[in-house]
């Protein structure tokens, strides 16, 4: 019951006015869909997997990365356990969302899904991998891939 009440409070707390932290306010805006998207104020869950410690302010990605990568990083941060699950299966709606955030054309999505599934162990080398580290690993895997490199170009 406590959790629900906490949830109700969050609904109240996370109104639409956010001080967008870190660099590039635009980066917070999921492409064309959610300038008002609240970020990591998510109802806290006991994530089974992945460390949700990627901070937008400390910004492991720095400020020079492209906006879609930033958006993807934000989404990863609050959904890392579901994304990891979809990655290991090579499909799922959270993986699709990642592809949308990265602006990946439908034709390249199979390659994207395959790449992440094949390299799951290097994206998440341990259960303590942070979502920021996972994002970096994904970006560098995509950079080395002929079809996908263009989506992560800075």
């Amino acid at each position, binding site marked *: *019951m406590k*959790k*629900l*009440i*906490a*949830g*109700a*409070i*969050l*609904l*109240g707390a*996370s*109104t*639409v*006015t956010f001080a967008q932290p870190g660099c590039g306010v635009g980066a917070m*805006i*999921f*492409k*064309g*869909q*959610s*300038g*008002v*998207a*609240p970020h990591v104020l*998510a*109802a806290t*869950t*006991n*994530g*089974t*997997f992945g460390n949700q410690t990627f901070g937008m302010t400390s910004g492991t990605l720095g400020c020079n990365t492209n906006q879609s990568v930033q958006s993807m990083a934000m*989404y990863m941060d*609050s*959904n890392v*356990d579901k994304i*990891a*699950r979809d*990655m*290991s*299966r*090579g*499909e*799922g*709606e*959270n993986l699709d*969302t990642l592809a*949308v*955030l990265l*602006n990946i*054309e*439908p034709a390249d999505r199979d390659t994207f899904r395959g790449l992440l*599934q*094949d390299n*799951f*162990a290097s994206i*998440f080398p*341990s*259960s*303590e991998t942070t979502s920021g580290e996972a994002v970096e690993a994904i970006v560098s895997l995509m950079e080395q891939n002929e079809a996908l490199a263009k989506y992560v170009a800075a």
Partner: protein
Amino acid sequence: MRAPLCFALVLSGLAATTPTLATSELPLESIALERDWLNLGHYHADTLGSGFTSQADDNEFFLSPDGKHSPYAELVATLDAIQQPGTGDSHASCRFPARDQWLRQRLDLPDSQATCPAYQEWTDTLNTESVTLVFAASYLNSPSSMFGHTFIRLDPPSDDHTTDLLLANTISYAADAAAHDSEFLFAYKGIFGGYPGITTVQPYYEKIRLYSDIEHRDLWEYQLNLTPDEVDTMLAHAWEIQGRNFDYYFFDENCAYRLLAMIDIARPGTNLIDEVNTHAIPSDTVRWVVDKDLVANIHYRPSAATSISYSLDQLSEQQRTLAAAIAYGYVKVDGPELAQLEPQQRSSVLDATYDYIRYQSEADSWPREFAAPLSHQILVARSQIEQTDVPPTPPAPEIRDDQGHDTFRMSLSGGRWDDRNFAQLTLRPAYHDLLDPPEGYRQGAELEFLRLDLRYYTDNDELQLEHITGVSIRSLSPRNPFFSPLSWQVGFGGRRTDTGTERVLAPYLEGGAGGSWNLTSSLQAFAMATADLEVDDDFRRGYDAAPGADLGLLHQSRYASVLAGIKTKAWIVSSQHRQDQAYLNGNLHFGRSVSLFAEFTREHHYDRYRNLWQVGLHAYF
């Protein structure tokens, strides 16, 4: 109460039937009483008197100091403000785009000259093509969500590859409860007022996380058939009310109610608000939306709990045992037991096991030191199996929540208590009990509010209040090797109680906790430890209390529901004796609007046996 409401209806009816009248000649006084303007200001006819009051409890929402009570003053002030020269976000046309749009159209005024960068940016980023009403199924374990919850999702255009519904925004209206409020205070303030209600915008994935992952509630998505103009109007009004306070009341001015008001504004003439009388149960509000042909299509999103139960059910007995053994650490992920399975079976077991661990971490707080490394091993193993089918998704229930029986029930019955015959009338405003037609409701869940049982004894022409239920909640959740929920019950009200010499109406409080187990998919056995408290000055000490037990069987199906068992209570304070009961209740369902019910109870109390027989009809409205 009825009169002012009818008055308002007549007015709006007049307005609708006289569109040919030159609008600019209509005095503003009567335009201010038109339905659309009243909706935009959330005005309602006062219960007493002929005035109006807005449900908005926020000065920022009004341009006139008298705006809270005067639709006319507010209209004049708005009309004046939107015609002022000037531009920018603080201009009235930008603060109240829906009012601006309506007034200009109604009065044939030229378009506003003001540009509104903030509002423009807001609508651009919301990028909404259609609107979906989302219903989160009822959830007994939370006082604010027992009847379900509704919110609106703003869907982006569906024609390009950048569309993603998880990222779509949602608008919801909820009580803004203080963190330190206890659950009792929460319930009290929710019912009698005291919480501000706030409209918020959040991405859909946050909602899924809350409802589907944390609270394990299925979501139903009803895509509305609003036109682009109607969608724009809804957004314009959402802009006007976001961040504005509307005091929150659980029963009427709740989440569902505010959304109905928004739909009424988006599509004038819909008048969903008229359907609300004393309370707005979210599942009922969905019914009205469906009845008014506002729904284009419906999509079911099972909760994490529904999905995991389903994928476990799809495994063979042996695979299920293996999944449990892995989840609890008895079998290693890289051990021979898994390695010997075919890739497809191996992936099914790994998928189910991961989802189960994730569920348990959420629901049962499995320690992270244990769950995280194990989850990681499972996912690494799973990623090495390619090209297998992903877990099957649970099919949508045949009967949706909004298709379940109506929530108001009236019952007529005849019966015999000991040697006295009686006729009984029962009224129950909400919502569902264990024996009602189960389709569209949670299995083993009961939630009743303000039920009234009136008995007329024929032998001496006596009318008696037999039972008044304040609240009665029962949650029988079956346990199995994977899930071990607690079953519980709580209730209070007033009921006839036997003092040994007479039956007096005594306030009572009762509760219980225990377990329940499925014997078949529609039959469960339960065992509860109970506690009862009754207060009456006919008791020697003024009150009495009893620990007790309740053992029974519950069968629920679309054709019939049966509840049978034995109950015992040991009254220990005022009189020291036992009250033992054997009971058998059965309902035969004729569709979901009428049930035939019968009850037999045999009771041993104060050294004598007594029988209760009762047969009657339930009708659901």
